[in-house]
């Protein structure tokens, strides 16, 4: 009875039912994978388990560990200095530290190995000038540790962004307070600021770990067998799709478990903190410390962005005569079109779910809202597989084949990247008090008007940030695009990858440069928005 009562007395019932229907559509491919899990027995699971899977899993943990360590290092400390100190170059760093996000991680891997290799600029210059010294640099750079550091450079902006916002919101009144209590700055940082920012930093770290789990191109190139490599070994090498699905589902379980554990542990230690109400008061730094701060802030930018960018530009100059500008234009157009369209839809859907969660106040909607983010934990190619299986079984009801159509590609991006679009919107919605909704209701606004008149305007910046972040992720996306794309549909990412994997890195450079330029412009806009928000709050 209780349940029936609940169903009947839910506020805004129509919206809730609508959201259930859309959530069903979003979860369908995952459901299909689970059905396949039980209907299509994989033959190689136990084989892989006995031979290589343990090894692959350990490699994955090791890679995650190194990448997490370095992305935390490159993310947290610069964010701390920039949020709380005043020094020359601060606003410059504040802008450029986001930029590595514009470089796809496989490009980072391929490019750095080319730079460091025997025939690359470093070793050949040393050979010609200091032959004795060059011997020390002539080592095998294709190591899991190298990749971990490189992925750290490629992915730290996720943590930097989260930490930067969290630190600024906490602000200097905490430092003042703890100083009055006699704590050193270092102690304040470890004892007060870090624990308070933990949820934010963790959300950034979660994205980093998901990216590492999904990484396949660079991992394969480095000869590192990760868990994801195991999924593709089952599929591509052993021709056993069933086992590939089993492994992907198992990965999904582990991610969910990991997520729940963090939820439980962070709910035990709940902090309530005041956000900074005063205009930020930044501390000055003495000269000795200044050098240290500059080093900390410049390393991620120089290694994560400047060096690969220079190398890529150099390749572009060398291959300038063979650049096909019509093709470049077409691919840029395709990329921008598919990324902006998909991001727009993702933002609309994300806002829809979060808004309903806000106005309905039911547990179902909270759970659903979390479930639909699961797509982020499944390798892109496996989502593609789920969609192929799903749509090939209902294809005959449609006038044209759905697989290989634009819709399915966008649908797949939606499932995969909804989590990315959701997170900035969620944190923005959470900040606004519920009294807004009540006031709106008292003024006689229906849900749609409430959204239009109140939530859209006050969350405008968050919506734009979400759009930019998903846009950049989709622009860099590879596996889904490769497996689901329509005929003759190439993007900057697919073209870059095709040249790179065929060992023609210089020819790929103009396309990767375009990705980086588009991404950088968007990130600069994002930066402006974030700064505006930080100054307002």
């Amino acid at each position, binding site marked *: 009875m209780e349940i029936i009562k609940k169903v009947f007395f839910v506020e805004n019932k129509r919206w809730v039912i609508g959201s259930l229907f859309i959530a069903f559509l979003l979860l369908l491919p995952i459901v299909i994978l689970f059905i396949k899990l039980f209907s299509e027995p994989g033959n190689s699971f136990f084989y892989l388990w006995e031979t290589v899977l343990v090894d692959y899993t350990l490699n994955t943990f090791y890679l995650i560990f190194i990448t997490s360590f370095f992305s935390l290092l490159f993310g947290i400390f610069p964010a701390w200095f920039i949020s709380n100190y005043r020094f020359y170059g601060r606003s410059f760093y504040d802008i450029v530290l986001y930029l590595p996000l514009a470089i796809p991680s496989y490009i980072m891997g391929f490019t750095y190995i080319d730079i460091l290799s025997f*025939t*690359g600029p470093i070793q050949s210059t040393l050979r010609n000038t200091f032959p004795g010294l060059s011997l020390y640099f*002539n080592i095998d750079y294709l190591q899991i540790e190298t990749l971990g550091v490189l992925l750290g450079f490629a992915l730290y902006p996720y943590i930097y962004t989260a930490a930067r916002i969290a630190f600024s919101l906490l602000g200097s009144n905490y430092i003042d307070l703890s100083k009055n209590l006699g704590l050193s700055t270092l102690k304040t940082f470890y004892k007060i600021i870090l624990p308070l920012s933990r949820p934010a930093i963790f959300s950034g770290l979660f994205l980093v770990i998901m990216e590492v789990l999904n990484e396949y191109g660079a991992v394969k190139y480095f000869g590192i067998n990760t868990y994801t490599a195991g999924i593709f070994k089952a599929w591509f*090498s052993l021709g056993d799709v069933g086992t590939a699905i089993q492994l992907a589902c198992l990965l999904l379980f582990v991610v969910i478990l990991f997520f729940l554990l963090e939820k439980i542990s962070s709910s035990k230690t709940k902090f309530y903190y005041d956000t900074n109400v005063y205009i930020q008061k930044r501390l000055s730094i003495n000269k000795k410390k200044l050098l240290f701060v500059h080093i900390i802030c410049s390393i991620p930018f120089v290694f994560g962005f400047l060096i690969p960018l220079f190398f890529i530009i150099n390749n572009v100059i060398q291959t300038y005569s063979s650049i096909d500008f019509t093709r470049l234009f077409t691919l840029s157009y395709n990329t921008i079109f598919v990324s902006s369209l998909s991001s727009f839809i993702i933002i609309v859907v994300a806002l829809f779910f979060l808004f309903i969660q806000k106005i309905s106040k039911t547990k179902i909607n909270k759970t659903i809202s979390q479930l639909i983010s699961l797509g982020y934990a499944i390798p892109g190619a496996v989502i*593609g597989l789920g969609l192929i299986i799903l749509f090939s*079984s209902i*294809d005959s009801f449609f006038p044209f084949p759905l*697989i290989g159509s634009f819709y399915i590609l966008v649908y797949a991006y939606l499932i995969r990247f909804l989590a990315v679009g959701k997170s900035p919107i969620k944190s923005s919605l959470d900040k606004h008090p519920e009294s807004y909704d009540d006031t709106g209701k008292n003024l006689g606004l229906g849900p749609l008007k409430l959204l239009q008149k109140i939530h859209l305007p006050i969350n405008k910046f968050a919506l734009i940030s979400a759009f930019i972040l998903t846009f950049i992720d989709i622009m860099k996306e590879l596996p889904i695009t490769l497996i689901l794309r329509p005929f003759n549909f190439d993007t900057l990412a697919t073209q870059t990858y095709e040249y790179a994997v065929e060992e023609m890195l210089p020819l790929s450079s103009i396309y990767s440069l375009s990705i980086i330029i588009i991404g950088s412009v968007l990130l600069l806009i994002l930066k402006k928005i974030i700064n505006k928000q930080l100054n307002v709050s």
Partner: protein
Amino acid sequence: MNKIYNIILILLLYGGCSQAERTSNEINIYSQRHYSVDEIQYKNFEKLTGIKINVVKANADELIERLKNEKENSPADLFITVDAGKLYRARELNLLQKLTTPIISKNVSVALLDPAGYWTPITYRARIVIFSNERVSKSDLSTYEDLSNSKWKGRLLVRSSSNAYNQALMSSIVANLGQEKAEVWSSGLVSNFARDPKGSDRDQVKAIAAGQGDIAIVNSYYIGLLLSSEKEEELKAGNSVSVFFPNQGEGERGSHINVSAIGLTKNSPNRENAIKLIEYLTSEEAQKVYVNNSYEYPVNPNVEPDDIVKKWGKFRSDNLDLNLLGKFREDAIFVFDKTGWK
């Protein structure tokens, strides 16, 4: 609200336009090959015949999965791979149909044709050994089998076993020598590795130049690429090694090769056009285009390979039925895992 409707309308139209028609003056290709030379070929063919070519490029197994699930609704006419083994797999899943035409038989060397008639080769490449000019003399090299000899301890370089070219090579070893001998061979090889398998074929050459190893197993195609590099240092690295074709001695089986090949799909909606394209791609005219724009070997006996490739000399290739590269694929993987070839 009107704005939203307009956007939706535009979307629907766009999605509709991007659909390839089921039957028309077109050919739809699922291809694992993604070389710029292919685009040149398709453009030439379009000019010649007025038939439009549509391509989706992805991993061979992903495309197989797409074909398998689409069944008779698949828009694909042709499936192109860089590995006969994948075409064998497609055939096993009943996704291909047999095809022989007098023109194809005339265009392609008999030895390279599929004995079962399900696919047509368009180019081929050899998986060969390269060696350091400084530290290895050619007379030290002989066969693939010899690479497991302990004289190469700590000197052999090769990429990982997840690479399809290595899988094809191992399949050929299993097909030729049997599973047991393949395991012994692979263990020997693994104990000779100069480092853990990794990188690309080109990286193996660089590693020889850097002195990290002395010999490497690579595809002929990539050496050609390296030798045509515009970067001086890469050219130097390419010139510091030489090419060796294994198993050329009397009574030996020849070097391992693999083909890029085309299969006609079971339910090809544009069958006639598709056959025309296959015939065109094997013609002398098109084969010359392949040779001039890549470092692969032509399948048409009347066409000579590129000059860089020609310099390595002629070689005898292994006459193994290339379908066996697919048939023994799983066994090859078992050998890799058992012997610790990462």
